[in-house]
């Protein structure tokens, strides 16, 4: 039997260790509260990237401390914003585009923002200040096409022909924003019924769907070790190939294929999160994103085109000439029908 004294001692001991652990946890948890200088919370998608010195310079000059929060793919980011709208996780959001802005509007996660400076080439939609734009389209592997002797397809129709069997890989529109953009392009270019008819024939012709752009481009694209010489990617990707190439090269190993119904213009921008704070700092940050320094830098860090007219183009972007035409849909139509289209696509291509 234990003596009551020993029992009390043991009790105290455990209490002490518990208190210790609890204090440690509490200290850890309260750490940020102590260090807080109320920074501007910026929510971004995982492709957001700007040179560190540029960000540091902004912080120093504006007196705004940035707290950048990466939230996954653009679609995931918007979903997080919607999920947490009762207690917003950020003050500003960067990376909503013309394909997703209406969903953001419908869920009331944005606050109106007035911005009239500069001369923007493209617009995202209400409440979003455009920052950059890019094109989702097909890329092809030059070496693979040269080797097979197959001519490049002249239209999406060609791709459904037996000669082009098993050549194309696309990211799933349900889980990837470029995949979604490409689906929207086919619908905009061919009309809904014809587009899904095309997708059904593409399924028969061995189109491969993967989860995201990374898998499509990095694993499946023949340029990077895969078996598919055609991939849904960006118009700027051939320039990125040159930029990141191991050896110095003067020509990109990949090329753009701008086909009718296969080009979508993505315009992304920055917006105020409804219920967020730090409005003055947010305004400074928005101006910063439209400033010359950022507009020039984003070309080779995010691989998008600057939205501010008269921004000099980066040298390497000569490998990524913009398409002369693209297909577009009104944001409201996308908001109304987007989810239904994705579900239909899953039915037609995957199930």
């Amino acid at each position, binding site marked *: 039997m234990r003596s009551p004294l020993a029992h009390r001692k043991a009790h105290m001991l455990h209490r002490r260790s518990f208190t210790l652990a609890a204090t440690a946890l509490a200290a850890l948890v309260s750490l940020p509260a102590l260090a807080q200088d109320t920074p501007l919370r910026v929510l971004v998608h995982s492709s957001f990237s700007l040179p560190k010195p540029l960000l540091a310079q902004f912080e120093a000059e504006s007196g705004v401390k940035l707290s950048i929060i990466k939230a996954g793919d653009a679609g995931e980011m918007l979903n997080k914003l919607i*999920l947490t709208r009762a207690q917003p996780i950020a003050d500003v959001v960067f990376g909503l585009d013309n394909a997703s802005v209406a969903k953001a509007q419908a869920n009331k996660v944005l606050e109106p923002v007035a911005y009239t400076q500069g001369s923007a080439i493209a617009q995202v939609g209400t409440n979003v200040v455009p920052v950059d734009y890019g094109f989702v389209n097909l890329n092809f592997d030059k070496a693979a096409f040269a080797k097979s002797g197959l001519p490049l397809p002249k239209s999406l129709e060609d791709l459904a022909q037996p000669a082009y069997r098993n050549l194309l890989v696309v990211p799933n529109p349900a889980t990837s924003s470029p995949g979604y953009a490409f689906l929207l392009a086919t619908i905009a270019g061919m009309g809904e019924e014809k587009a899904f008819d095309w997708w059904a024939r593409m399924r028969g012709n061995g189109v491969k769907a993967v989860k995201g752009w990374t898998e499509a481009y990095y694993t499946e694209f023949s340029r990077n070790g895969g078996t598919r010489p055609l991939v849904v990617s960006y118009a700027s990707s051939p320039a990125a190939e040159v930029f990141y190439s191991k050896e110095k090269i003067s020509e990109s190993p990949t090329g753009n294929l701008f086909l009718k119904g296969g080009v979508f213009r993505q315009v992304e921008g920055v917006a105020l999160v409804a219920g967020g704070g730090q409005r003055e700092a947010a305004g400074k940050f928005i101006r910063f994103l439209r400033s010359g320094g950022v507009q020039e830098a984003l070309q080779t860090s995010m691989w998008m085109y600057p939205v501010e007219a008269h921004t000099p183009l980066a040298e390497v972007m000569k490998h990524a000439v913009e398409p002369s035409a693209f297909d577009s849909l009104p944001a409201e139509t996308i908001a109304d029908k987007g989810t239904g289209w994705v579900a239909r696509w899953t039915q037609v291509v995957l199930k």
Partner: protein
Amino acid sequence: MPSRRWLLALVPLLALAVLLVAPVLRLAGEGWWGDLATQAPSSPWALWTDPYLRWRVLWSVLQAGATCMAALLLGLPVAWVLARWEFAGRSLVLRLLMLPFVVPTLVAALGVLALWGPRGVFSGWLDVNLQDTPWLLLYGNLFFNLCVVVRAGVDALEHVSAPRVAAARTLGATPWRAFWRVEWPAILPWLASSLCLVFLYCFAGFGLALVLGGQRYATVEVEIYTLVAHELQLAPASLLALWMLLLTGAVAWAYALIEKRLATPTRVQPIARQRPSRPAHCLGVAAALGVLAFFCAAPLVAIVWRAAHAGWDTWALVADEETLAALWNTLRFSATALLLATVLGVLHALAAQSSVAMRAAAFLPFVVSPITVAFGLLLLYPQWTASLPLLLCAYAVLAYPFVAKSLASALDSVPEHLPQAARSLGASPWRVFWRVTLPMVAPALRRGMAFAAATALGEFAVTLFLSRPEWATLTTLIYQRLGRPGAANGDAALVLACVLMALALAAFALIEGPRRTESPHA
């Protein structure tokens, strides 16, 4: 007595409740009652009437079951060879069996693809393409889990009583019959417990299925992630998650029961190992090593091989500012997480001594997918989004079961009379623990901590969700590199994977310390 145990259990239970259960419930609540419940399923059975979701669940069970079968069929003979034959390099092989545990999921997936992916080493030789087949995932599963069964098998076979086998043999039993009638019943519970573990790992695993499963062979965990993160359909996601919890909970409970029963402090005289003398014996040893090389070593060799051929320019990147910062983050996050995980793990293991429920509770972090947890945390504590303490606490909760599990089973086999003797001589419980129990279980504690450290080093899912750019770790850096075009980035990812692997290995070796003498029972 029970009141004391519950006091011990308070901290880990609180951590589990706050960091695991509450977030999952919050997510489920959002799905069922929140204003996002646009298409709440009419009944909990709705899942089984949808052919697509039914296939997902069935496939998850199937792939876990198939892995268990394959791991048993391949692992038991290998374990038998390792336990019964003495050959040069045997202890090295046993030690290397720890390797897959230490390898981060992302690295393992890269390794499997380097072998079997399109243009992989084996795919080239054999002219096959395993992409979009179930084999990639099964191979990946075996990479991680074969060694679980082999290790359990070796331990079990070393606990078979030599006199009993000898008696059977002198009574005329053939070696096969002696194995079947004496050894098999003795090792069965060990194998069963390890198979439970394998099933849990495969069934609730996320990373491998995400990378290797493709669209068709992804598991329920991947489906939950897709439903929540991409499609914002919380109701079906939470329904799936609840069913998963039910299934994995049952397996975890079974594991806890078997393991509790397994713990016998009895000492047996183990069977002495023999040197292989006949060609058949040597062939057996070679075959066992071949199996291990094919399933457990090949993916790692492939990564090292391809990284070694990446060239100096790529390796120079190890010294650049970004990588060094990530390395520093990885180290300090893992160290903090390890500290927290050890505290939680020790308290949980002590509390789990008398309670099967407590034991099963230690599996909760294995059972709930990290992505679900991360999303729940985000929803429950939006004010702490991208706060370092939350990230580190999540790390710790995901890693601490390794400590708890390892320590709990070691505590079971501490002979009761030693602490009792110390107590009767007047030592306080704390002193008994510190001076008697702890030295006896120290190796197990260190091993658990080593696993926890390896888990924290390779943590990926939660980091992806709750991190900030300046907190980039090596895993996030690898993932980022994979997301950029150009061969240089692909090579960079491989090199970083190599660095991460080396780091995990070093941490493991450092924490686990030199292997204690071969057999503790000799």
